[in-house]
C-alpha cells in the first residue's frame, strides 16, 4: 500500500510517499528542494511557512521522485494536530480534496505521535518503549504503549530544548542552524569552562519535567557568574559547556524514567535527536536499546506521517472527509496535580 503523507503543521511544507509503512519512496521538504519560482534556488526559511505557495509543487515533487502517477496512491495521511491552525488547514484541505477526488482513504495524524514513531520506520522496537521527543517546539518524555497509545510522563515547563540551543547560538552569533553550530563548536570546547546551574523545578512539577529557561538566561546573561575562572571565554567553550548542561538536564530525567518504568527500549525523535552528544549519551545507557531516526526523519517531514498513517489505515482507522484540525492536543498538555 502506497501512502502519501503531508505535513504542514508549522515551518516545513513536506510530502512523502511511503510503501507499506516502511519503504520511503520519496520525502520532499520545501526548504530542501530547488524551486525556480518565485525564489531563485533553495526556498528561504522565512518563505517555507507560506504553505499555500508550496503545497502543490511539493506534492508533485514527492510523486515524481517516487516515480508514481497520482492514481497509484492508495491512501493519504495528513497532520491535522497540533500546530498552527492556518498552516494545518492548508495541508488538511489539500489532502481532503485529493482523497475525495481519487476516492481513497484519508487519515488525520497527530504530529507528536508521528515524531515518536519516526524511528520505527527504520528501526522497529517492540512496545512498550520510552518515547523522547526533543525539538525546537517540543520536549516530551513518555511511555509509548502502541502507535496510538501514549502516556506523557514529563514535558518542558518553559522553553523546549531545541529553542534553548537556537537562542544561545543566535545570541553569540554562532550561525544557522543554531543547534548544528553548537554541536560543531562544542567538539573543540571545554564542557567544564562554565558550570551552569541545573533547572529549579518547583514542587508540584512532575519528576520527569524539564526546564530550559534558566539555563538559557544563565548562558546569555550571566556567563561570568558561572565561569570556572581559568578557561578561555571562547565560543567553543561556551558551546561545549552549554551543550553539556542542556543534555544533562535531559538525560537525568530519561534515566529516571527508564529506571522507574523498567523499560529497556527507547525511541528518540525531533531535530535535537540529530545532536551528536545526545546520541552518544543515550546510546551509552546500559542495557537499553535505543532507536534514532535517520537525519531526514528527525525534523518535520511527510514520511513519518505516511508511515504512521499506514498503521492506522491497516487497522481500519480512517478519518471522514470532513476531518477537523486542532491547534492543540489535550493529551500533551496535562494539568498539574
Amino acid at each position, binding site marked *: 500500500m502506497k501512502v502519501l503523507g503531508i505535513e504542514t503543521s508549522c515551518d516545513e511544507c513536506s510530502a512523502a510517499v511511503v510503501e507499506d509503512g516502511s519503504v520511503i519512496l520519496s520525502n520532499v521538504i520545501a526548504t530542501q528542494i530547488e524551486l525556480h519560482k518565485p525564489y531563485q534556488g533553495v526556498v528561504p526559511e522565512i518563505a517555507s511557512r507560506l504553505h499555500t505557495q508550496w503545497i502543490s509543487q511539493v506534492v508533485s515533487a514527492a510523486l515524481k521522485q517516487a516515480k508514481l502517477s497520482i492514481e497509484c496512491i492508495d491512501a493519504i495521511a495528513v497532520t491535522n494536530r497540533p500546530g498552527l491552525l492556518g498552516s494545518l488547514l492548508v495541508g488538511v484541505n489539500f489532502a481532503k480534496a485529493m482523497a475525495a477526488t481519487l476516492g481513497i482513504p484519508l487519515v488525520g495524524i497527530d504530529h507528536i505521535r508521528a515524531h515518536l514513531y519516526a524511528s520505527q520506520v527504520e528501526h522497529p522496537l517492540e512496545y512498550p518503549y520510552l518515547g523522547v521527543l526533543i525539538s525546537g517546539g517540543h520536549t516530551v518524555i513518555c511511555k509509548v504503549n502502541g502507535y496510538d497509545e501514549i502516556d506523557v510522563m514529563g514535558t518542558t515547563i518553559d522553553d523546549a530544548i*531545541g529553542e534553548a540551543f537556537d537562542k544561545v547560538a543566535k545570541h553569540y552569533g554562532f550561525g544557522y542552524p543554531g543547534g548544528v553550530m553548537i554541536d560543531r563548536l562544542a567538539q573543540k570546547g571545554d564542557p567544564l569552562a562554565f558550570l551552569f546551574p541545573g533547572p529549579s523545578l518547583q514542587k508540584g512539577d512532575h519528576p520527569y519535567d524539564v526546564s530550559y529557561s534558566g539555563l538559557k538566561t544563565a548562558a546569555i546573561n550571566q556567563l561570568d557568574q558561572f565561569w570556572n575562572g581559568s578557561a578561555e571565554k571562547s565560543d567553543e567553550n561556551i558551546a561545549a559547556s552549554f551543550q553539556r548542561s542542556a543534555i544533562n538536564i535531559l538525560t537525568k530525567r530519561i534515566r529516571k524514567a527508564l529506571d522507574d518504568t523498567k523499560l529497556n527500549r527507547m525511541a528518540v525523535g525531533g531535530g535535537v535527536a540529530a545532536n551528536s552528544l545526545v546520541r552518544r549519551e543515550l546510546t551509552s545507557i546500559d542495557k537499553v536499546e535505543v532507536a534514532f531516526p535517520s537525519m531526514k526523519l528527525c525534523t518535520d517531514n511527510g514520511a513519518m506521517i505516511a508511515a504512521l498513517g499506514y498503521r492506522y489505515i491497516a487497522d481500519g482507522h480512517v478519518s471522514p472527509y470532513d476531518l477537523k484540525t486542532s491547534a492543540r492536543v489535550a493529551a500533551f498538555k496535562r494539568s498539574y496535580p
Partner: protein
Amino acid sequence: MSSMPEARVFHCISVDDTFALGIKIGEASPSGSVISLQGPLGSGKTVLAKGIAVALNIDEPIVSPTFTLVQEYCGTRRLHHMDLYRLEGQEEFESIGGEELLYGDGITVIEWSEKIEALLPPHTINISISINDDQSRTITLRGLRL
C-alpha cells in the same frame, strides 16, 4: 470612556516579583485585551505570561511559543500566547491566521509585536522589560490601570 492611563514603572528584584506583577496584570486585563510584551532574551517575558495565565486560572505550564508561534490555553478565559520572533512580517502573520486572534474574546499576549505594528488594535496594552546591571528588571506598563 476613561482616558488612556499613563505609563507606570515597576521595579522587580526577583523572578517572583515579575510573576506577581503578571498575576496583577492578568486580573486587571479585560476580555479582548491584546498585551504586547517587549524585552531582550531571558528578561522574563514568559515569566510575566505565566503570571497572567495564573490570573486566568490556567493550571497547565505556559511554555515558550517561539517555535510553535502560538500556544493556546483554556482557563476561566482563553489565553493565546504568541511569539513573532521568527516571523518575517505581516504577510506571514496573516497566513497563519494571526489576525483572528487579535479580535478574539480571550486575552492575547504577543511577544515581538513590533513586527506587526500596523495590525495592532488601538487598545493594545504595552509592557516593556529591561534588565538592570544588578539583574533586577524595570517593567513599564502602558494602556492598563492596575
